[in-house]
């Protein structure tokens, strides 16, 4: 009895191949004989294949990968709630950003560039926020120009009816557009005026929300919230650190080649020998535990540094823009002057609009009314330009309030994160983006970087001074027994470095678990084979 099926198969296949290759093939009878031998052999081997496949499947299913039974969902919810409280208590920005007006402003502001699917959604977004704060707007509030009033009266009617049918609103837009192509811009500044005139109500609304969430989540102050958030993140990070199941799924998805994780594979040998000093015994659990604890931290630092490189252009742009300001330490007086000018001009515009009265806006017989309307549009246009200036000065004002010669990247991340509108404008400019989806993608990546609780390097990287980050990181880890030089941290070497770190961390995790590397390799191979069938 031959008990090793692999040996048998190898020998049998060899013998069958020899037999088939030596069979005569000259005549049709010969050929039929060859084919019948092949068919008989194939039948037998299909049978073998079925049996082996079933066995592999059973064997694969029998491997149980330990899973964490942690309360991940609960921890994620806690972090989400605390992030929300943090955003409400954020001392840097105002009710304007806290309510998300700046995000809507960015959208309506770039309506033409990004070709949004629905202007209605943006307008409804503004109206929703007013209603949230208990402010019910009516058509009289939209008096910037007679065209804004005409359009918004129709819009509000549809909104009140809840029919969702904006066909008539679109028709009115079409009619107005040829007389007043800047209609959307004027709707925008009408909203901005309304937001400003209702500032106290919005502020009171935010304060009541702040009180509510502080009571609900037992938060004493913004600082208290930051501390609780940090603790919540520590718990979450611990519970959500890469598990054996995650490693297995990554291998199944092809995120890395599990073959490279075997002890004798040259990639593994190279990873270990490049990062771990020779004196360390890889089999010593305690020593390797220390090394892996350092590598875990290094991994976070490398990911953080990689994010920094990704957004370096944004930081440099900020530096170029504000180096002269940080040195001059001048107070920004322009904002107040612009606000005064806007107020004055808006008053003039309101008076002007009252003169137009309630005549039909398409009444062509009334030439004087027509001229007044045209002048009203011109004034609105001037105001739109003033608002543009206001935006620049508003952000400059916020920047100056937080600016210092020692400002760190981490502080700048917080600043941009607090001012969505200006962050997106800066990205649009620096990366020359004209596609809304790309802006969204950059924005999401930036926000993930800005709120990453594992960031630590950025707290010490100054914006206005030069800093050799690779040197700082490499020096730190050399002290922790990790072989690392500045070259390893050059932008093109970051990905290979991360792969090496991950390889060591994962193999160490697997080798200290109840499951073997070979079992994970088997699951990956078996899945591939079984899927291929």
């Amino acid at each position, binding site marked *: *009895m*031959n*008990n*090793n*099926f*692999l040996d*048998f*198969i*190898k020998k049998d*296949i060899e013998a*069958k*191949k020899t037999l*088939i290759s030596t069979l005569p*093939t*000259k*005549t*049709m*009878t010969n*050929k*039929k004989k*060859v*084919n019948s031998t*092949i068919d008989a*052999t*194939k039948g037998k*081997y*299909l049978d*073998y*294949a079925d*049996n*082996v*496949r079933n*066995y*592999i499947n059973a*064997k694969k299913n029998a491997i149980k990968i330990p899973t964490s039974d942690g309360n991940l969902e609960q921890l994620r919810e806690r972090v989400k709630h605390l992030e929300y409280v943090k955003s409400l208590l954020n001392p840097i920005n105002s009710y304007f950003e806290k309510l998300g007006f700046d995000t809507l402003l960015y959208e309506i502001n770039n309506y033409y560039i990004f070709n949004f699917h629905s202007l209605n959604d943006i307008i409804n977004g503004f109206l929703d926020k007013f209603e949230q704060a208990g402010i019910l707007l009516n058509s009289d509030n939209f008096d910037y120009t007679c065209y804004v009033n005409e359009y918004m009266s129709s819009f509000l009617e549809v909104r009140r009816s809840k029919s969702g049918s904006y066909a008539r609103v679109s028709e009115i837009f079409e009619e107005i557009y040829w007389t007043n192509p800047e209609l959307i811009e004027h709707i925008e500044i009408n909203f901005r005026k309304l937001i400003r005139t209702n500032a106290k109500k919005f502020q009171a609304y935010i304060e009541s929300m702040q009180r509510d969430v502080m009571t609900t989540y037992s938060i004493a102050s913004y600082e208290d919230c930051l501390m609780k958030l940090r603790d919540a993140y520590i718990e979450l990070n611990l519970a959500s650190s890469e598990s054996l199941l995650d490693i297995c799924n990554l291998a199944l998805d092809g995120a890395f080649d599990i073959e490279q994780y075997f002890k004798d594979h040259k990639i593994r040998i190279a990873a270990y020998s490049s990062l771990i000093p020779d004196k360390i015994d890889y089999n010593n659990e305690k020593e390797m535990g220390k090394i892996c604890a350092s590598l875990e931290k290094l991994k976070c630092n490398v990911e953080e540094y990689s994010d920094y490189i990704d957004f370096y252009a944004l930081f440099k742009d900020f530096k170029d823009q504000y180096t002269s300001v940080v040195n001059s330490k001048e107070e920004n007086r322009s904002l107040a002057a612009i606000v005064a000018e806007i107020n004055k001009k808006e008053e003039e515009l309101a008076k002007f609009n009252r003169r137009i009265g309630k005549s039909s806006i398409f009444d062509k017989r009334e030439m004087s009314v027509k001229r007044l309307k045209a002048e009203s549009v011109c004034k609105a246009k001037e105001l739109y330009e003033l608002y543009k200036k206001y935006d620049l000065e508003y952000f400059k004002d916020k920047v100056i309030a937080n600016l210092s010669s020692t400002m760190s990247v981490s502080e700048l991340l917080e600043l941009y994160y607090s001012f969505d509108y200006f962050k997106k404008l800066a990205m649009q400019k620096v990366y020359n983006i004209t596609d809304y989806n790309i802006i969204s993608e950059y924005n999401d990546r930036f926000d993930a970087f800005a709120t990453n609780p594992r960031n630590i390097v950025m707290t010490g990287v100054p914006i206005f001074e030069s800093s050799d980050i690779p040197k700082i990181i490499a020096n730190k880890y050399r002290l922790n027994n990790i072989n690392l030089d500045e070259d390893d941290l050059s932008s093109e070497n970051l990905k290979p470095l991360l792969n090496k770190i991950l390889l060591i961390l994962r193999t160490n995790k697997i080798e200290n678990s109840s499951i073997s590397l*070979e*079992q994970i*390799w*088997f699951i990956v*191979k*078996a899945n591939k*084979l079984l899927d291929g069938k």
Partner: protein
Amino acid sequence: MKKSEGKYEFDLSQLSLKELIDVYNEINSFLKYLDENKLEIGSDE
């Protein structure tokens, strides 16, 4: 793999995980070889 009426009786549990995959690969590549070596039946020369 056990075949009571057959000539051989194999116990797949004797194989390591790696050998199991090897067996499956050997069988499949041989099945491919068999398909490739089937002859076209024409008329007698």
